[in-house]
C-alpha cells in the first residue's frame, strides 16, 4: 500500500488534515455547546425572573384591592347603620316630644327597618341588648326568638359575641358563618353591630365576605388569563416554554396540557412524581432540573430531554417553571459543526488536490531518475553518457534536492564510467603482468637445476617454493669437475620481481665465477674466493642496497671433503648417521652486495658416507603460524634429528610437511628453499676424521 513515496506523503497529509479538522470541530462544538447552554440558561432565568416579578406585582395589586374592597364594605355598612340609628333617633325624638307614644315610636322604627334591602339582598337586624331576643329580622324563623344560644355552623355564639363587642366598644365588627337568604350553603359574613342605648337595641347589618373573595378570585383569574397570554407569547429557545402549577398539583398554565390536574404526573423515565420533583427543584432555583417530556409538535411521545428552572411564589402557592429542550440548546453547536464540517471538507479536498499535484511534481523527477538508473543497469552502462546528460538536464530543471540528487547521480555515473574504463585497463594490465609473471616464474624455475647425472657417491634433492610467482631464493648444484660438486643456497633480501632479478644475477655469477676459477686456477676452487669475487661484482652500482646471503660449498666426491663459505646465510645443518645434527655456524660474514672489499672465511669438513648436508633459507625457520610463532631452528633441528637418513627427497619432504602442518592455514610469507645432499661414497674406504679446520 505504501510502496511509493507519493502514497506515503499523501497518507501523511490526509492524516494530518483529518486529525486537525476533527480535533478542531470537536473543540469548537464543545465550546459552542457550552456557551449556548450558558446563554440559554441565563435567558431562561431572566424570563423566569421577569415572570416572577410580574406575578409579585399583580399579587400586590390584588391584595391591595382586596383590602380596599373590604374597608369600603366596612365603611358602607357602618354608614348604613348610622342612617338607621338616625331614623331610630328621629322616632325617639317624636315620642319625647309626645307626638307619638314610645311604643308607637319603637314599633314604627322596627317596621321601617324590616323591609330595607340593599346590595345583594342584604338587610338590617335588631336584637334586644338585655335579652338577646331578635326584635327585627327578615327571617321569620329567627324573628322573635331568643338568640342567646344561637351558634353559627362553626359553633360560634354569634349574638353573644355581638353583645360583648357593643358592651365594650359601643359598636364593632363580628365575623361568622351564615346561610344567606335564599341559599343553602353557609358563607362567611362580616357583621357590623351598634348599640342604640336609649332603647337597649343592638342594630346591625352583615356583608358576605365571599363577595370580596369572589372578586379577588375573578381578579386572580384575570391575572392567570393575562399570564396565559404572556406565556403563550414567550418561547425560550425555539420551543421551550413557561408553565405554572399550584401546590396541589394543578396545572394552571401549560401550552400542551389543558388547565387542570396533570394528565401525566409521573416522570416517564424514573416514574417519580413529576410535579413533586419540580416542587423539590424549586428549592434550588439556580440548578436546572432535567427530565424527559413531550414536545408541543409531538404531544404523545414523552421522550424529549428537557431541563427546567422552577420558582415558587409562596403567597399564591404557585410554581412557575421555564423549560427548554436540550436538543434545541445543542442545535446551534450542531449547526456550527455542520457548517465547519462542510468548510473543512472543502478545504480538505482542496488541500488533497494541491498535495496531489505537489507530490506528483515531486515524485515525477524521482521516477525519471529511477527510470534512467534502471536504463543504465539494463544496458550495462553502455549508454552511460546519454543517461548522464539526461540527468544533467533534470538537474538543471529541478533546483531542489531531487536536482542535487540528479547532479550527484550524473557525476557518479561519469565517475563509474571512468572507473570502469580504468578497471578494464587495469585488469588488462594486470592480466598482462600476471601472464608475464607466470612466464618469469617458469624462467626462474628453469634456471634451477632439477636433476644431476646419477652418481653412486651422493643423493641430492632440492626444491624452492616462492611465496609469490617469482622469488629471491635460489639453490644450485653442479659438477665443477669430475670429482667436485658445488652446492649453493642463496636468499636475496626482499621478495617478488626485484628480488628475482637480483637472484638471477647472483645465481649466474656464482656458477660462472666458480667455473671460471676452476678453469684458471690450479689449486682447487676456494668457495670464499668465489663469494669475494661475486660480492665485488654485485656491490658496485648497488644503490638499492639489495643483498644476497649465500652459502657455498665445494665438495670432493672421492674423499667427502667439503670446503664451505658463508655470506650471512642461515648456517646449514650437518646430519650425521648417528642422528646428531650440527649447525655449520662458525663463519660470520656480511651478505654479498653490502660491503665492498668484504672477505669471507672458509671451512673444511669431511663427510662420512650417509652424512647429510641440509641447506635452507629462512623461509623455513621463519614460517609463521596463526599465533605469530616461527617454525624456528629448534623445530627444524628436532625434525632433522628424527630423520632416518635414507633419502634426501624424503628428508626434504618431511621438513616441508612439518612446516605445512605447523603453519596450518596461515599463508606462506617468504620463499622457502631446501637443498639436501647425502654423501654415499663407497663405504669400503677408510673413514677419516672430519673435524673441520679453517684453511683461509
Amino acid at each position, binding site marked *: 500500500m505504501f510502496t511509493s513515496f507519493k502514497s506515503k506523503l499523501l497518507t501523511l497529509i490526509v492524516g494530518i488534515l483529518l486529525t486537525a479538522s476533527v480535533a478542531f470541530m470537536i473543540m469548537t462544538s464543545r465550546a459552542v455547546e457550552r456557551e449556548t447552554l450558558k446563554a440559554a440558561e441565563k435567558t431562561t432565568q431572566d424570563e423566569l425572573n421577569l415572570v416572577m416579578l410580574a406575578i409579585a406585582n399583580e399579587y400586590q395589586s390584588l391584595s391591595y384591592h382586596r383590602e380596599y374592597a373590604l374597608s369600603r364594605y366596612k365603611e358602607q355598612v357602618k354608614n348604613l347603620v348610622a342612617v338607621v340609628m338616625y331614623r331610630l333617633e328621629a322616632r325617639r325624638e317624636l315620642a319625647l316630644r309626645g307626638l307619638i307614644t314610645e311604643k308607637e315610636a319603637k314599633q314604627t322604627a322596627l317596621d321601617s327597618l324590616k323591609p330595607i334591602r340593599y346590595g345583594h339582598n342584604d338587610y338590617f337586624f335588631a336584637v334586644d341588648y338585655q335579652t338577646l331576643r331578635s326584635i327585627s329580622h327578615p327571617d321569620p324563623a329567627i324573628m322573635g326568638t331568643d338568640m342567646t344560644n344561637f351558634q353559627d355552623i362553626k359553633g360560634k355564639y354569634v349574638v353573644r359575641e355581638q353583645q360583648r363587642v357593643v358592651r365594650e366598644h359601643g359598636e364593632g365588627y363580628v365575623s361568622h358563618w351564615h346561610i344567606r337568604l335564599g341559599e343553602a350553603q353557609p358563607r362567611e359574613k362580616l357583621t357590623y353591630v351598634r348599640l342604640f342605648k336609649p332603647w337597649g337595641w343592638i342594630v346591625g347589618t352583615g356583608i358576605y365576605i365571599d363577595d370580596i373573595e369572589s372578586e379577588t378570585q375573578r381578579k386572580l383569574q384575570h391575572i392567570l388569563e393575562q399570564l396565559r397570554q404572556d406565556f403563550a407569547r414567550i418561547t425560550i429557545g425555539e420551543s421551550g416554554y413557561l408553565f405554572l402549577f399550584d401546590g396541589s398539583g394543578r396545572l394552571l398554565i401549560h401550552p400542551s396540557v389543558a388547565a387542570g390536574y396533570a394528565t401525566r404526573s409521573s416522570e416517564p423515565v424514573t416514574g417519580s412524581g413529576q410535579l413533586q420533583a419540580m416542587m423539590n427543584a424549586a428549592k434550588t432555583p439556580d440548578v436546572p432540573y432535567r427530565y424527559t417530556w413531550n414536545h408541543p409538535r409531538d404531544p404523545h411521545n414523552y421522550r424529549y430531554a428537557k431541563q427546567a428552572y422552577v420558582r415558587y411564589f409562596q403567597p399564591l402557592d404557585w410554581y412557575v417553571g421555564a423549560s427548554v429542550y436540550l436538543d434545541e440548546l445543542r442545535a446551534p453547536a450542531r449547526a456550527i459543526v455542520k457548517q465547519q464540517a462542510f468548510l473543512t471538507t472543502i478545504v480538505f479536498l482542496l488541500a488533497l488536490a494541491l498535495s496531489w499535484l505537489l507530490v506528483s511534481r515531486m515524485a515525477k523527477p524521482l521516477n525519471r531518475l529511477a527510470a534512467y538508473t534502471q536504463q543504465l543497469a539494463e544496458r550495462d552502462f553502455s549508454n552511460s553518457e546519454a543517461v548522464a546528460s539526461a540527468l544533467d538536464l533534470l538537474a538543471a530543471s529541478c533546483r531542489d534536492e531531487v536536482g542535487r540528487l540528479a547532479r550527484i547521480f550524473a557525476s557518479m555515473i561519469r565517475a563509474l564510467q571512468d572507473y570502469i574504463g580504468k578497471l578494464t585497463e587495469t585488469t588488462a594490465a594486470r592480466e598482462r603482468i600476471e601472464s608475464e609473471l607466470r612466464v618469469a616464474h617458469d624462467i626462474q624455475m628453469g634456471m634451477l637445476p632439477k636433476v644431476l647425472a646419477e652418481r653412486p657417491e651422493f643423493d641430492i634433492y632440492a626444491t624452492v617454493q616462492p611465496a609469490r610467482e617469482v622469488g629471491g631464493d635460489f639453490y644450485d648444484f653442479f659438477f665443477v669437475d669430475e670429482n667436485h660438486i658445488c652446492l649453493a643456497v642463496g*636468499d*636475496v*633480501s*626482499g*621478495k617478488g620481481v626485484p628480488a628475482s632479478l637480483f637472484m638471477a644475477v647472483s645465481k649466474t655469477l656464482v656458477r660462472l665465477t666458480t667455473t671460471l676459477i676452476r678453469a684458471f686456477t690450479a689449486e682447487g676452487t676456494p668457495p670464499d674466493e668465489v663469494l669475494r669475487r661475486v660480492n665485488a661484482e654485485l656491490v658496485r652500482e648497488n644503490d*638499492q*642496497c*639489495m*643483498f644476497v*646471503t649465500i652459502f657455498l660449498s665445494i665438495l670432493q666426491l672421492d674423499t667427502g671433503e667439503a670446503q664451505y663459505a658463508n655470506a*650471512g*646465510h*642461515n*648456517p646449514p645443518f650437518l646430519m650425521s648417521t648417528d642422528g646428531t645434527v650440527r649447525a655449520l655456524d662458525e663463519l*660470520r*660474514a*656480511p*651478505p654479498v652486495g*653490502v*660491503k665492498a672489499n*668484504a672477505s669471507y672465511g672458509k671451512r673444511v669438513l669431511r663427510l662420512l658416507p650417509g652424512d647429510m648436508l641440509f641447506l635452507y633459507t*629462512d623461509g623455513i625457520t*621463519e614460517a609463521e603460524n596463526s599465533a605469530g610463532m*616461527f617454525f624456528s631452528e629448534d623445530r627444524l633441528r628436532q625434525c632433522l634429528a628424527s630423520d632416518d637418513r635414507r633419502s634426501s627427497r624424503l628428508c626434504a619432504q618431511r621438513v616441508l610437511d612439518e612446516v605445512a602442518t605447523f603453519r596450518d592455514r596461515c599463508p606462506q*610469507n*617468504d620463499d622457502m628453499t631446501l637443498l639436501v645432499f647425502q654423501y654415499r661414497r663407497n663405504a669400503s674406504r677408510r673413514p677419516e676424521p672430519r673435524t673441520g679446520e679453517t684453511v683461509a
Partner: protein
Amino acid sequence: MRVVVSKFESGAVLNVDGRIDAVTAPQFRDQLMTLIDSGYTRIIIDCALLAYISSAGLRVLYEAANKLEPHQGRMAICRANADVRRVLEMVDIASEIPIFATQEEAIQGLRYLG
C-alpha cells in the same frame, strides 16, 4: 611496529617496538631516512622491544649505514634480544654497524668512534 624517537646531543635514538619485516620495513625506512635527511648523524637503533628483524629490515639498516657514511655519520645497535642478535650476527652486521649491550654504551661508543 612502533618507533619512538628520542634525541641526544647530535643524535637520535629509535626505540623499535614489534617486528621489522617485509610489511613494516618501508615505514621503518621512512622514519630512519627522515631523521638522516634532517641532519642527524648519530643514530642508535634500540632493539630492546624488537621481536624480529627480517632481511628487509637488514636492508634498511645497510642502506642507512651507506647513506650516513659520506656525512661522517655513524649508527649503532643496542639491547638486541637473542633472536635478533643471532640474525644480526649471521650477516656480520657488526662489521658495518657496531652492536652494544646498553644505550649508554652505544652513545659512548658513537662518541668515541665519531
